[in-house]
Structures are given as structure tokens and as C-alpha cells.
């Protein structure tokens, strides 16, 4: 079975972002970029499936600017066999990404496609579900466990009230939650080897899809700043403030 993993280039999760002074967007000049943490988990899961002999090939794909090839190389260093770059400088939203990925799914026919549940920049949490709908495949979102057996995927999902398990007919789409696995770090020899693994580049036009954004970004503003408050010296003072100043307990 072939496994396809979608990875996205995003701002590193440790970076504190700033809004541009003209409020047109977030300022991404010279900030550290990295693979979306949920996509690292997706790559790890795919590589583990291969190590267990369930997957035969792991293909990493991204939709984004030229620089996103760095994240594809990371995926290759982590154990993906080859990579596909859908290159575009457009501001791609989930629907556009899902349409491009759907074309790749049609061409590659993976038994399983794994995506992150959300990208930590736009926090959309849409792409995997949209891809599932566009390809007519079942989805196991927010997965904390994936078991492949008899042409089915049994996926345990993190839902608001606890955990839910569903069984999906393969081919299927899975999106990762935080506790699915703990991704490994790439070792130096693997990083060197990754440079020689195949990486093919296509454009959305070649795939016949329109990825440009449908939404107009009117403005981006910083959130209302919270004023830091005071330090209290004792539990008594805390209880007193909560009762008499904040009036949130009685």
C-alpha cells in the first residue's frame, strides 16, 4: 500500500508573530519557518507504517512556494521515499490545497493519505476533510490511533467528550492529532541522503486546478492585549481579591 502525506510549511511554533503595521497581514519576513507540527506527526505515522511492512512506499507532497521544498526535504530525511511539490506563490487556502491534493491522490492512488488536523498558522482544520469529500473517501480526523487490517482502517479519534473509534473502507484519509505518535528527529546521514531522493515539481496549471484564494483578507490586527495584573502575597489575599475586587466568587 502506498501512503501519501501532506506537509505544510508554516511559521515555527516557537516564534511569536507580529502583525504588519499597515494591518495587511502577519509579518513573515525573516521569521523561522518549519514543518507544521501536525504534519511531522503525519510523516512519522507513514514512516512507521512502512517500518511495520504495512506501507510499501511513502510519498510526501506540499502545495506552496519554492521554499516549501525545505519541508519536503525534511520529510525525505525522516523516511519518505519521494516528494511532490505543487509549486505556487498564490495565497493558498484549504480549498485550493485540497483541490491540488485531490489531483495528486487521483494520480498516485494511495491506500491511505495522512494530513495534519490543522495548520498552526491559519488554524483552519479543513484540508483533510475537504480532500476526503473531493475524492469521495472516508475520513478519520483527529486520530490518536490508526490500525490497518483487512482493507480497512480502524481510527481512534479525539473528540470533545473523549474518544471515538470508526472503521473506514480503504482507500481513506486520516488527519493526525497530537497524541498519535512522537515524531523522531532526522539524523545527519539521513539529511544527506534526503538530498538525493527524487522530488518532482508541478504547477497547479499542469494539474488543471485553481488554487487561488476565494476569501479576501480585509485586515489583520493584533488581539486586544491583556494587562498583566498584580502578584498577591498569600492565599488569604487571593481569596479576598477574588471575592471583593473581582467579585467572581462568593
Amino acid at each position, binding site marked *: 500500500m502506498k501512503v501519501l502525506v501532506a506537509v505544510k510549511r508554516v511559521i515555527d511554533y516557537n516564534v*511569536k*508573530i507580529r*502583525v504588519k503595521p499597515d494591518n495587511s497581514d*502577519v509579518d513573515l519576513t525573516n521569521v523561522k519557518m518549519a514543518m507544521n507540527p501536525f504534519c511531522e506527526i503525519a510523516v512519522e505515522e507513514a514512516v512507521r507504517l512502512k517500518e511495520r511492512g504495512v506501507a510499501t512506499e511513502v510519498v510526501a507532497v506540499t502545495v506552496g512556494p519554492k521554499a516549501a521544498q525545505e519541508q519536503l526535504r525534511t520529510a525525505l530525511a525522516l523516511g519518505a521515499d519521494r516528494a511532490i511539490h505543487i509549486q505556487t506563490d498564490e495565497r493558498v*487556502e*484549504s*480549498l485550493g490545497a485540497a483541490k491540488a491534493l485531490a489531483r495528486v491522490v487521483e494520480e498516485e492512488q494511495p491506500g491511505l493519505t495522512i494530513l495534519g488536523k490543522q495548520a498552526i498558522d*491559519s*488554524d483552519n*482544520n*479543513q*484540508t483533510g*476533510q*475537504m480532500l*476526503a*469529500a*473531493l475524492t469521495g*473517501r*472516508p*475520513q478519520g*480526523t*483527529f486520530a*490518536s490511533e490508526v490500525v490497518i487490517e483487512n482493507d480497512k482502517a480502524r481510527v481512534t*479519534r*479525539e*473528540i*470533545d*467528550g*473523549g*474518544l471515538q*473509534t*470508526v*472503521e*473506514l473502507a480503504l482507500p481513506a484519509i486520516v488527519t493526525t492529532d*497530537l497524541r498519535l505518535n512522537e515524531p523522531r528527529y532526522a539524523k545527519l546521514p539521513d539529511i544527506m541522503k534526503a538530498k538525493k531522493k527524487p522530488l518532482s515539481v508541478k504547477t497547479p496549471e499542469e494539474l488543471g486546478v485553481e488554487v487561488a*484564494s*476565494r*476569501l*479576501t*483578507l*480585509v*485586515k*489583520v*490586527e*493584533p*488581539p486586544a492585549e*491583556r494587562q*498583566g*495584573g498584580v*502578584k*498577591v502575597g*498569600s*492565599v488569604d489575599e*487571593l*481569596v479576598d*481579591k*477574588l471575592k471583593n475586587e*473581582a467579585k*467572581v*466568587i462568593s
Partner: protein
Amino acid sequence: MSILVLAEHHDGQLAGATAHVVAAARAIQQDSGGDIDVLVAGENVGAIADAAARLDGVSRVRVADAAVYAHQLAEPLGELLVALADDYGHVLAAATTTGKNVMPRLAALKDVAQLSEIIAVESADTFQRPIYAGNAIATVQSDDALKVITVRATAFDAVAETGSASVEAVDTVVDNALSSFVGEELAASDRPELGAAKVVISGGRGMGSGDNFKLLDGIADKLGAAIGASRAAVDAGFVPNDMQVGQTGKIVAPELYIAVGISGAIQHLAGMKDSKVIVAINKDEEAPIFQVADYGLVADLFEALPELESKL
């Protein structure tokens, strides 16, 4: 055009989030006009439909009651929404794991963008939503004929329950050969739901063990609080995942949020910084949580918690 709200429900009851989503629908209606319908989809959901009919501002409750909709799996529910969507200009759901699971399917099949987790309505086509873990607020406008939206429930005040909408059956029944429900492990708790509680007390890695979370129980009992956790506490296995507050957990905005042994990573702050009053108890006076706390207590939690419980 009218507005459709997908009702959120669990265990035979309408979830509180629905009344907040109807409030967002009313804000849209002020600009767009039209009626507000609520869709209740599931199996044996008559009582839920009756509860939805009492929500203020709702004209009509549409009920899709069939075995295929039990457990609200995304594939059949998405198809049902696609079948109904032509009557509407907006389809809204709560940004819960159910709403997040199904709404993008509707959007993709209708070839429209989705607006995730809106926190304010500026007009019928322009909305605010947090991006980058709430470190920026984007105002986005959609020209799509159908607007598919998930709503952050804590950002809208619930509508009252004095209405009396009509209740009508929907007879669309779809097939589902793609997915099936196997089982569920739901956390049983007598405490209020995290997303709806007026007081939330959360423990982090500083709690040291799952057993030590008992130190929060007595305080939660006295304050009628829900108990939450940081991701570090969940990952360490102290408590189950459904207690996680943050960017990738639950978003809460109670009257009072008490963070105990939590450092205040941006991903955690994203889930609680809209709380009215924030209290932090941490032994490290440099912990970033103190920058957002209204009241900070620099103390060892193993001493502060028993004392706090006795003084409430």
C-alpha cells in the same frame, strides 16, 4: 436567503453550544434578513428537536431522524447538508469536533471556502477569526454564494429559550458504505462541561502526577468548576485528552480561570486568555503565565492548593 444552524447534541440532549451558534446566526440575520432554521440530525432525536425549537430566533427545526445519522459520522452528515444547503445563504455549526469534522465536507462539495471558528460578525459576508493561535485576528470577507462557517461558541452570548419554532421532518436518507461506528469511550463526570463552565481550574505539568489532580477536586467542588489541563499534563498521562485547554484542545472563556503549575505557553494561552479573570499559581515568578494573570500567586502548589480549598 435563510440561515441553517446544525444543532450540536450528545447523549440525547441538545448541547449548550447550539444556543451560542444561533446567536451568531441572529447577528448575520440583522444584515441579511431571512429565517433561521436549525437542523437536528441523528437517531431518536425528537426531544432534542423540541429543545432546539425553544431557542429564540429560530423559525423552524428540521429533523433528520434515521439510523444512518446516529453518531453523526461525517460522510452521511455531510451528504445530508449538501442536500439541504441550496435553500440557504449561510450554514453554521459550532467549532466542536463534530462541526469541524463535517463542515469542510459541505464546503468542498459546494466548491466554496469555509470560514473556521469565527469570533465576530461584521456583516453577512465579513467575519473576524483568530489565526496563529489567537495572536492575530483576521477580518475576512467571502463572496461565495453559500457561506459555510464554524463558530467559536464562547465568543457569542447564548440566545434565551423562550421561542416556539415549528418542527418538521426531513426525509432525505443517504447511504453510507464508507465508514462505520465501532465504539466510544466518553469521560463520565458530574462536573460542568469545560466549554460552558463559569469557573475552570486547570493543572499543568507542575501537578507532578494524575493522583495529585485530586488536589483540584475539592476546590472545583466548592466553586462549581470544571477541571482542565495543559497539554503537558495530558501527554504525561496525568489526565485524559478531553481535558486539554489550548490552541489544539478546548477553548474556554469562563468568569474565572485558575491555572495551577502551568507555565503559560502561547498554545495554552490561546485556549483561555479570553477568560474574564485569570489566576495563576506557580512557583516560578518568571513564568509567562503571570503576564496574563490578573492575580498571580508565587507559591508551591502543594502548599497553596490545600490552603485555598480550606479558605473558600
